[in-house]
C-alpha cells in the first residue's frame, strides 16, 4: 500500500547494528553508527561530518570523524540544534577528504540537496559528498530549552541524563531518575522554524533512519537513492547490519506522524502569510 508523507523510496524496513558494542551505546538500533563504521572500513567514505555531545551537558558539538572511535562518539541523539553543515568545509578543505559522509536532520538534508543544485558557496563540497544519511525529526530544541524541560519541568539535573527520547507523545529521559514530560508541554520550547518544516523522515537523503515504526532496539530505515540502497545491501551482506520486515502497524504510526508534521507546516505557513511575513519560497511539498 502507498503511504503518505514518506517521500520516494525503494525500500523501507527495520534494521539494527549487528555489533552489540554499537547497539549498547546507540539511540535505538545503532543502524546509522554501524553504516558509518562500515563505510569507513570499506573505503566508501574517508570521513564523516557528525554531531556529538560536547563537554557541556547536552550541548551538541559538530566535528569531522575519520576513525571508528570518533564515529562511535556520535552515537545517540542530542535533541538540540547542531549546525554541522559548517564542518563540511573543514572536511573538504582542511582535512582534504574526498568521500565525505554526512548525517543530518531533514532540514539539513534539504540544505545539502539545494547545495548540490546551487553551489553558491559550496565549492568542491558537492563532489565530495559520498553518503547522506538523514535522521527522523519532528522538532528540535535550543540547548537552553532542554534545560527548561529537563531541569525546569522534570526537576532532574541535566548531567544525570544518559539518553533522551521523544516518542509516543512523551519527552523521556533515561538516567538517575528518568523523567517523562508530555510533548505538548515540551513543544512550547521548540525552535519556531520547525513549525513550517514539512519533512519528518528526511525525504531527500540517500538513507533515512529513525525509531518510530520499529520495535524497541530497532531502527526504521528508508533506502531512497540507488547509491544508498546498494550500499545498505552491501553492509547487510557483510553482516554489519541485521534487518527484518517492518509491520504495517508500525508504518501506519509513522505515517500518522509524518502527515501530522505536514499538516502543521501547512497551517503555520498559512498563518504566517496571513500575518504578512516572508516564508521560504516553494517550501511546501
Amino acid at each position: 500500500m502507498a503511504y503518505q508523507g514518506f517521500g520516494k523510496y525503494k525500500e523501507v524496513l527495520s534494521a539494527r547494528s549487528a555489533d552489540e558494542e554499537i547497539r549498547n551505546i546507540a539511540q535505538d538500533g545503532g543502524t546509522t553508527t554501524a553504516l558509518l563504521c562500515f563505510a569507513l572500513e570499506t573505503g566508501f567514505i574517508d570521513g564523516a561530518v557528525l554531531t556529538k555531545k560536547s563537554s557541556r551537558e547536552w550541548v551538541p558539538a559538530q566535528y569531522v570523524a575519520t576513525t571508528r572511535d570518533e564515529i562511535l562518539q556520535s552515537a545517540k541523539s542530542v535533541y538540540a540544534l547542531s549546525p554541522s553543515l559548517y564542518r563540511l568545509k573543514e572536511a573538504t578543505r582542511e582535512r582534504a577528504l574526498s568521500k565525505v559522509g554526512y548525517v543530518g536532520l531533514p532540514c539539513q538534508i534539504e540544505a545539502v540537496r539545494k547545495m548540490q543544485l546551487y553551489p553558491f558557496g559550496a565549492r568542491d563540497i558537492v563532489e565530495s559528498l559520498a553518503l547522506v544519511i538523514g535522521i527522523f525529526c519532528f522538532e528540535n530544541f535550543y540547548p537552553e530549552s532542554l534545560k527548561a524541560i529537563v531541569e525546569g519541568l522534570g526537576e532532574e539535573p541535566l548531567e544525570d541524563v544518559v539518553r533522551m527520547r521523544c516518542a509516543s507523545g512523551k519527552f523521556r529521559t533515561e538516567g538517575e531518575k528518568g523523567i517523562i514530560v508530555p510533548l505538548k508541554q515540551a513543544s512550547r520550547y521548540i525552535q519556531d522554524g520547525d513549525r513550517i518544516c514539512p519533512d519528518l523522515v528526511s525525504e531527500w537523503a540517500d538513507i533515512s533512519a529513525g525509531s518510530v515504526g520499529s520495535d524497541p532496539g530497532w531502527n526504521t530505515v528508508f533506502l531512497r537513492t540507488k547509491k544508498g540502497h546498494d550500499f545498505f545491501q552491501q553492509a547487510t551482506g557483510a553482516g554489519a547490519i541485521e534487518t527484518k520486515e517492518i509491520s504495517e502497524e508500525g508504518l501506519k504510526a509513522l505515517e500518522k506522524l509524518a502527515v501530522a508534521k505536514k499538516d502543521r507546516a501547512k497551517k503555520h505557513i498559512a498563518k504566517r502569510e496571513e500575518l504578512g511575513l516572508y516564508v521560504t519560497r516553494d517550501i511546501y511539498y
Partner: protein
Amino acid sequence: MSKPKFAYVHLAACSGCEISFLDNFERLLDMMDMVDIEYMTLIKDATDIPKVDIVFVDGAACLQSEDAVETLKKARENATYLVAWGGCSSTATINNFSRGGQLPQPQHESFPPIKRLVKVDASVPGSPPGPGMAYNVIRAFVEGDLDYLKYLSSYSLGGFACGCDLWKDIVDNGLCIGCGACAMACPTRAITMVEGRPNNVFERCVKCGACYAQCPRSFLPTAAIEKLMDRLMED
C-alpha cells in the same frame, strides 16, 4: 540550430569569479559544447562585445569611469539574457567599501551593484560562486530550464546583500533552523554559529550574499530537488 552565443564581460573585480568559471576544468568542454564563447578577454582575442544570447557580467561598473559604465550598458544592449556573475556584480561585494583615493585612479570611489544601472536577468551571489554555478546557469539557459533560473531572478539574491539578510529575512521571520549552511557558504568565515544561529562578524563580511543564497530557508528549489532525487534513484 546554431549554438547560443556567449560573452563574458569583466569590470571591477579581482578575477576570482573568472578563475572559478575556468575551474570547471573538463566541464568547460561541455560548456563550450553548449554555447559559443564569442567574447572573453581572458581566453579570446576579441575587443568588442558582440551581439550574444547570454552574457556574464563579472564585477561592478565604476561610476567615475565612463568607460566602465559604457561597457556595462553595451553588454546589456547586446545580450538577450544578462547574468550578474559573482558577488561584485550582484551585490558589489567588497567594492561597497571603496572610498576612492586608490589605484587605478584616486577618484574611483563608487561601485554600485550593476542592477542599479541595467536590468539584470539572473544574479549569482558568492565571492566567488562555486564553479558548478557557471555550468548550471549556462545549462539552464540553453535548455530553457526556467525552474532553475527563476530563483536567481528574485530581488533578494542581488542588491545590497550581507549577513544582515540572514537576520532580516530568515532569523527575524522565525525561519532559521540552525543548519549551518550560511556559515559554510561564507568565503571569509565571517559567520560563526552561536546558540544555533548565525553570528556575523561585520569586519570580515564582504557583503557577497552567498550566505543568504545558500540558506535552505531563503528559497527551496523543491521541484528541481525532486527531479534530482528521481535521477539519484535511477543511477
